[in-house]
């Protein structure tokens, strides 16, 4: 191609692009601001827009009963300012209907989560009488622990299999009274208001394997309990005292603090091994917060001992 043709083409493109810019810019700017030219009234009218995002996507939109061409996520522009009825429909989901108001030069943003219709629910495939269940969260998955009339079981995530972890059969009333279950180091620890139990769920069986062992019986009520001291002890607040129970050597326990009030509370931070106690001061009759740092306390005791030596 000769130079003059390139020159011609270049000039043609230049003027075409310039013309396009000059003509389209005001149109796009007006359109962006919501203006629409009404041929009937020969006037510019200010419109608004509706932006719809849904979960899941690809939902059919009806605006005042009229089906919109685009599935969600979608934007409906050039809407005259007034109230509209919006219906979102997808097979298998409850239809979502609401009234929205479109204002001039504004966009109404809808972000909707559709609820699926519940047709049939899944039932576990085993014939147990389920007294109580707990969901035990692990790092990447969850386990379902069930107390049944045939023992204590873990259910698989897909409910295809059930693993018996204890022969212990609690009565329905006792199973229902269990408040908390913890799984830790192949042990299952759980308690109700009165008692705490422990079950060894490791594969190595001992003489008492698979049976729940009573770990503690409270004089009053177990208010709360925490794993602590390198997860070897169960720290229990029974409303009268704080007691630590060795879970490896059953029967070994230490009463470490006597509470002044039955409404006192404790919290144990296992990460930093700090015990927090909210207890009543006998002198003032007001509640205060106490803190016991276990690890520095151990160091302090060892240091005292070394000094004595």
């Amino acid at each position, binding site marked *: 191609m000769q130079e003059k043709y390139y020159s011609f083409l270049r000039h043609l493109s230049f003027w075409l692009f310039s013309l396009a810019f000059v003509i389209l810019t005001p149109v796009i700017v007006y359109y962006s601001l919501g203006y629409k030219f009404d041929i009937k009234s020969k006037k510019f009218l200010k419109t*608004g827009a509706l932006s719809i995002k849904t979960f899941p996507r690809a939902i059919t939109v009806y605006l005042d009963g009229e089906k919109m061409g685009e599935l969600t996520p979608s934007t409906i522009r050039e809407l005259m300012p007034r109230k509209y009825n919006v219906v979102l429909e997808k097979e298998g989901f409850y239809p979502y209907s609401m009234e929205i108001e479109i204002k001039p030069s504004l966009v109404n943003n809808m972000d909707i989560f559709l609820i699926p219709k519940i047709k049939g629910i899944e039932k576990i495939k085993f014939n147990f009488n389920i007294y109580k269940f707990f969901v035990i969260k692990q790092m990447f998955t969850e386990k379902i622990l069930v107390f049944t009339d045939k023992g204590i079981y873990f259910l698989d995530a897909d409910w295809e299999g059930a693993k018996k972890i204890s022969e212990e059969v609690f009565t329905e009333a006792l199973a229902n009274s269990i408040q908390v279950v913890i799984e830790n180091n192949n042990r299952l620890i759980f308690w109700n208001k009165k008692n705490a139990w422990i079950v060894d769920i490791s594969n190595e069986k001992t003489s008492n394997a698979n049976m729940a062992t009573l770990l503690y019986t409270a004089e009053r009520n177990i208010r709360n309990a925490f794993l602590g001291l390198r997860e070897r002890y169960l720290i229990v607040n029974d409303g009268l005292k704080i007691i630590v129970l060795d879970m490896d050597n059953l029967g070994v326990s230490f009463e470490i603090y006597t509470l002044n009030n039955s409404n006192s509370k404790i919290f144990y931070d296992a990460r930093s091994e700090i015990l927090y106690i909210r207890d009543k001061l006998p002198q003032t009759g007001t509640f205060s917060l106490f803190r016991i740092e276990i690890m520095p306390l151990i160091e302090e005791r060892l240091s005292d001992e070394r000094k004595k030596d």
Partner: protein
Amino acid sequence: MNEKKIKRILEIIPGSLSWFMIFFLIALFVFKPLSAIVLIIIYLLYWVTRLLYSSILLLMSHQRMRSKRNNDWLSMCKEAKSDLKFENIIHIVLYTIYKEPQDLIAGSINFLKDTDYPADKIIVVLAGEERAKGSFDNLRAIADKFKGVFLDTIITIHPEGMPGEITAKGANATYAAKQVKIYLEEKGYDLKNIIISCFDADTCPDKKYFSCLTYNFLVNQKRYHTSFQPLPIYSNNIYTAPAFARVIETGSTFWQFIEGMRYEKFITFSSHSMSFKTLVEVDYWPVDLISDDSLIFWKCFLKFKGDYKTYPLDIPVYMDIAVGKNWLDTVKVQYKQKRRWAWGVENFVFLGQHFLKEKEIPLTVKFRKLYQVLDGHVNWATWAIIISFITPLILFSGKILLKDSLALFNLSYINSVVFHSLSFILFLCIVISWEFMPPRPKGISRLVYVSFLFQWLLTPFISAVLGSFPSLDAQTRLMLGKYLSFTPTPKSR
């Protein structure tokens, strides 16, 4: 008004305009958000149009280059109808050298030796610097390597601290060209027949460069009012350079591609060629300014009262991508190189000063040229910052402050159109850049091509960091009177 004041005003204009554009948009968004959104929409539409127009130019330029690729330029030279005789044409190839290693320079001269043009019509000038210790011995060693290959090899050493000069490439090239003039006159050559090419030490001309240049010189009726511009392709070390450096340099090549289609705006850049007679007439390259490559064009433009053009040869010269010792050093090297290129904003001051004195060039031409330079530099300093930073910032803060605004909602849509247009141009760049790829050296894995493909994703970030920021830096320095000193780009292979 005295000359100094005029110069200062001209120096302040580009930087203040760029900063004004940036701050005006931010301030407008704070006080009149809707007006700012409308302005950004217009600005984005302007850039979409400009980018699409540029991509048409890129395609046309590429097509023109392909159509010329298979020409037998040497035969065409011999048959060219011209008032000059092909046999009498002599080429001066001037390499400006500072501290570049011997093997790099020898490599470039090897390329020169391997061109299809008769070597006995080429005089090589090795223009060294006195401030680079051992310069003469190094250049002597290179000259000895090519003894008898070319018509002659001349070594010049530019003395340090010559009065009226700054430490810049132009001063060295001018000193060497003056020595060459003495040499040519002594040998009895007619300067009308001499073409000079001013090359960097790493410039490797294409096999057909000199035959194509000679043909176009011979047939051009206005050969003494024309500079000849090769297409600079930064590919000598493309397989070892970091991805971001490849993207920015390939971008420079494409920019030259596009500019080459706009004859009336096209000016010389980096390595270029011209008549030696013209060079002498305009008193050589400037010795007291940094942007010698573009300023030589404007010197000619002023000398010939606007009757001067740059002709795009569409034949490549291959150069090195500026790299440092490591990744971070490469960022620094690239930044400094781009800032030096952006220092070309001094052309605006140079032109402004001379246009005030010049009476013969029409006022409309003067305004057009000043606008061309100003527009180019102000856009260079601002467009990537506005598109890559200010627009997303407005979109982000707008979603909190003006979440129901239809204009903001549409701005977000138009912004995505801009990025789609950019993707289209990037796709063109990927396809075209593939053609300039030298053969893969041994020891480099094929996987390198994957990075060649994905490197383009860095474009928005690189356009700002190594495009607009160095340019804004250069304009700010000029605005504040903190003049840039010439920093040679380190070169090694």
